[in-house]
């Protein structure tokens, strides 16, 4: 099928449906527009998958109309920055104002002085990685859209909510496919705007504050990105990502005071941009602050769109770093990622708010992905892509579950979720599946961790193997800690507790069921996924398909069969579930030392030891120090 | 730590201190205070022991001329031995085995010097002399001395 059509289906159609749903009156009509949009988006992404990789040039976009698309994009870009300026002025947020002005200046510099002419190039690239990303965005995004129909019922700003959600999805798809860096920058800033608007959805004090924080941090990332783009254009004389693989690096005269190794400086800037978007360690506060938004927004931000853009960028530039000899830069990215992985997991341990736990765990897993891109071997990049997919499925599911649970019990506190299985069995079981899928073998995250562990255990590629291993081990075990505690709380019932008749809102529950099934399907299809859908640049020398031997993933270091273990896992849990019968006569209260009192269960979050107020004091400076080291590693 | 290591080494080669209890019985020291036995030939049924017993395990049935001793209720304090005016009570060195039921020991008093018996004998003699009829032997359901019997009624307690 024509690439352009598919592109417009994934990018323009959501925007179009968004505008339609904004304009039509009444919740029912909006609902149908949203459902239609979700369907079209899913089908379009599947069609893209079916169609396979292809390239699109700017000419092909111009076909039929003699619109100067590039110019329009640049104009829109400036408009976007002016919008940021407006919001900064409106909220008296001077950080936003300053950063927006700075960015405006840099962008103007890029467009007026650096831009290497209007030479033709591939504007959009549909390759395996972007197909995978598109599948994540479109499928999970569509499910979240469906879910938000149920969730946002009765909200007064629902029209703008759906509009922004759908624009967000379209924008994200465009960002994934964009090959032209100036275009990419526009879509990048577009996600910033959308997330900003979504976070301040409720228009109250905390959400405005959180959205402003998200805005200025992302603007900081935008500045890093635009710096990176300027430097790329100066040093490599191209503005197309795909052409960078073959580009000749020359140090421009204006920058001749830099050492020769500084040729990878633009990638360091882009990595910092990616860090802000993925909310890695020094920038983590915007993502945790974004929890004030409605749950579908959190789900969207965490699983499929916003934060994935950052690690997506890292995966994109990882081979370039390898080509241009940025071994030290890779090591620092490993350390930054590993640092976020371990310490955000530790921070999540001290939280009671379920959405904050999920937020921290998202950051920690993004850290793991970033770490894999830092390790930068074919095994590690495979692990990164696998983790990206599996994490999106599980995390999207968990956020939606939390939203549903919030509707049922009116609280996000995991202490309040004690014994939820008696009240809402379906959603609880699905939540537990989601939680287990994030910590236990043989689910996807484990496959990713297993690959990451293997790739980190080589001393040749990265010098800091032991440190990387250390981060992986501790991060994993901390996450096991808080997930199993949460899962246990959900399952803790009193003896002989009976469920009240459940109320089902199918708009919310069908996406949950689909995603829960998706977890199992994605694990079962791991081998196919590895052979068919991950395509690494030649520089890595080996394809992920080389891992697959029959149904087994077999690297040089070890083997593991996800399908077999999935079956074993299901059998292990299914046998007791089916066999065990609890006769009413043998039910008994728990042991409470003979007092017969029902114990209160809760607490134990080590707030005094590892609470946010304790740790962030030290972690934020260390994060900033690591960023400084990132640049030092490039320059020295 | 080293001292403890040496100690456990010593323990390992020495004979275990514990014994296989029901199969190798515990050897009491001489002078242990255990079950109380009543000498029916010395008792005068004065009832001092009954009044002095802190555990209230001795019952003197004057009419039936016998002593009821609740073995499992006895605390082996030996106070009855101390107060007995005729040294009819003695404490031996044998413990009764643990039991699921209450053990009650009845002792028939045959001491002719006991006031109650004296009185009865006198009365009987008087009766005999008066009526010249054959006398009945003993009164009530007297049990032989020293025999342990299970009190069926109280087993549920």
């Amino acid at each position, binding site marked *: 099928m024509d690439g352009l059509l598919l592109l417009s289906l994934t990018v323009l159609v959501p925007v179009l449906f968004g505008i339609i749903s904004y304009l039509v009156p009444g919740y029912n009509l909006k609902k149908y527009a949203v459902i239609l949009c979700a369907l079209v988006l899913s089908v379009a992404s599947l069609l893209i998958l079916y169609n396979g990789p292809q390239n699109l040039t700017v000419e092909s976009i111009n076909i039929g109309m003699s619109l100067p698309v590039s110019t329009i994009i640049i104009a829109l870009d400036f408009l976007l920055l002016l919008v940021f300026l407006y919001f900064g002025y409106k909220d008296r947020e001077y950080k936003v104002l300053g950063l927006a002005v700075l960015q405006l200046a840099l962008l103007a510099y890029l467009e007026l002085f650096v831009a290497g002419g209007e030479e033709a190039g591939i504007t959009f690239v549909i390759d395996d990685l972007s197909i995978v990303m598109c599948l994540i965005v479109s499928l999970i995004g569509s499910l979240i859209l469906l879910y938000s129909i149920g969730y946002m019922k009765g909200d007064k700003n629902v029209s703008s909510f759906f509009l922004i959600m759908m624009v967000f999805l379209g924008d994200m798809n465009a960002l994934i496919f964009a090959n032209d860096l100036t275009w990419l920058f526009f879509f990048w800033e577009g996600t910033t705007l959308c997330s900003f608007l979504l976070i301040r959805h409720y228009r109250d004090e905390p959400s405005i504050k959180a959205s402003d924080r998200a805005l200025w941090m992302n603007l900081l990332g935008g500045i890093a990105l635009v710096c990176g783009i300027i430097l790329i254009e100066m040093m490599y004389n191209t503005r197309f990502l795909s052409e960078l693989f073959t580009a000749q690096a020359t140090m421009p005269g204006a920058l001749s005071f830099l050492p020769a190794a500084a040729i990878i400086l633009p990638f360091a800037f882009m990595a910092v941009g990616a860090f802000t978007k993925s909310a890695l360690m020094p920038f983590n506060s915007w993502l945790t602050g974004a929890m004030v938004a409605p749950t579908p927004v959190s789900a969207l931000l965490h699983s499929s769109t916003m934060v994935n853009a950052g690690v997506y960028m890292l995966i994109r530039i990882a081979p370039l770093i390898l080509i241009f000899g940025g071994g030290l830069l890779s090591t620092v990215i490993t350390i930054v990622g590993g640092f976020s992985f371990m310490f955000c997991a530790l921070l999540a341990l001290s939280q009671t708010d379920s959405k904050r736990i999920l937020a921290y765990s998202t950051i920690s897993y993004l850290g793991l992905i970033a770490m894999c891109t830092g390790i930068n071997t074919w095994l590690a990049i495979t692990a990164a892509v696998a983790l990206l997919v599996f994490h999106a499925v599980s995390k999207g599911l968990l956020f939606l579950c939390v939203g549903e649970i919030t509707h049922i019990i009116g609280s996000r506190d995991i202490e309040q979720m004690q*014994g939820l299985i008696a009240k809402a069995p379906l959603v609880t079981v699905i939540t537990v599946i989601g939680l287990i899928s994030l910590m*236990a*073998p043989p689910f996807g995250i*484990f496959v990713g961790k*297993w690959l990451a*562990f*293997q790739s980190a*255990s*080589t001393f040749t590629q990265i010098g800091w193997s*032991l440190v990387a*291993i*250390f981060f992986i*081990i*501790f991060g994993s*075990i901390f996450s*096991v*800690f808080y997930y*199993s*505690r949460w*899962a*246990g*709380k959900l*399952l*803790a*019932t*009193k*003896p002989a*507790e009976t469920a009240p008749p459940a109320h089902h809102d199918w708009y919310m529950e069908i996406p949950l069921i689909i995603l829960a099934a998706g977890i199992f399907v994605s694990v079962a299809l791991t081998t196919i996924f590895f052979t068919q859908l991950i395509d690494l640049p030649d520089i890595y020398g080996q394809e992920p398909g080389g891992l697959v031997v029959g149904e087994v993933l077999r690297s040089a*270091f*070890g*083997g*593991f069969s996800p399908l077999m*273990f999935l079956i*074993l896992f299901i059998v*292990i849990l299914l*046998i*007791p*579930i089916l*066999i*065990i019968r*609890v*006769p009413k006569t*043998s039910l*008994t*209260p*728990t*042991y*409470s030392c003979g007092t017969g009192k029902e*114990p209160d*269960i809760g607490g*134990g979050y080590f707030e005094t030891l590892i609470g946010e107020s304790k740790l962030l004091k030290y972690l934020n400076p260390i994060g900033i120090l690591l960023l400084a080291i990132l640049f030092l590693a490039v320059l020295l | 730590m080293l001292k*403890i290591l040496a100690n*456990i080494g010593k*323990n*390992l080669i*020495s004979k*275990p*201190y*514990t014994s*296989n209890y029901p199969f190798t019985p515990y050897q009491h020291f001489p002078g242990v205070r255990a079950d109380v036995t009543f000498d029916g030939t010395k008792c005068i049924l004065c009832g001092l022991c009954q009044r002095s017993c802190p555990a209230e395990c001795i019952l003197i049935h004057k009419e039936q001329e016998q002593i009821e001793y609740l073995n499992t209720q006895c605390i082996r304090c030996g106070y009855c031995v101390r107060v007995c005016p005729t040294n009819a009570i003695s404490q031996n060195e044998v413990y009764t085995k643990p039991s699921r039921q209450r053990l009650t020991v009845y002792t028939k008093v045959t001491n002719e010097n006991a006031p109650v018996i004296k009185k009865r004998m006198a009365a009987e003699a008087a009766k005999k002399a008066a009526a010249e009829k054959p006398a009945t032997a003993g009164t009530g359901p007297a049990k032989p001395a020293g025999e342990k019997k299970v009190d069926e009624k109280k087993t549920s307690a």
Partner: protein
Amino acid sequence: MITLDDPIIWKIAFPAVMLILAPIIGGLLIGIDRKLTARLQNRAGPPIVQPFYDVLKLFGKEDKIVNKTYLVFAVAYLLTVVLSTGLLLFHYDLLVITFMFGLSFIFLVLAGYSVRSQFSYVGSNRELLQMLTYEPILLLVVFLDRLVTGSFQIDAIWSFTEPAKTEPLLYTLPLALLALFLILPIQLRKSPYDIAEAHQEIAQGPVTEYTGKFLGLVTIAHFYEVFFVLWFIGLYFVQNWAVRIGLMALAFLFSIVIDNVTARLRVDQMIRQVYIIGLLLIIVNLAYILITGKWIA
């Protein structure tokens, strides 16, 4: 004719037989442990087959159940331990085995959490803290194994240095073995690190609420665990059966003796000690293999 040298015997028949024998061996080991501990304490002690009597008796007991969830997890715990023992015997990937063994602990923890009982809850928390303590050390030891043998596969341990083909892990990773000895009390639930099942503090920890046959199943899982842990240590000298069994026996005796000469420590003390000593041992050993160049990328 299948002879003793036939790989089929050593690859399939032997592991299968061992998997069936594992609970019996584990139970006997616990029996020996109890007898020996009693002798070290100057007691007579129970007969060696007492653990089996106990399990049999548990299976004859009446069930007292709180809810279904924790029973499901008890069976899942047993099955996972059996699975990881099987994987170990059938020479699977060492990393996967370690994680599967960790999964069994996760099931136990979930079981403890899902009964809403005071001591189960605290016990599960402690079980997690114990996992937090020993799992990093175990994984780092596995990492060292991988560095020396060049692969996470257990098969690689037999033939990791191609020219010599006989060098045991013990010669290159002696301190890693010591680190394994260090976490042995946690895995075998013995003093000084038996904090999750400290009956003086929290009754029986996560297994407090189990009765009857489900407690029996948990006990059987414990038999498997003992076997698993010792067999894991046996991997350090696979070239000679006598030395291999000797090594396992040494580890077993070591755990008993340590159990008898130490008091139980607190959680914070346990974490501090194990991390400091364990990481030190591992780093020194890593430095040793890096300096001597006995590692494979």
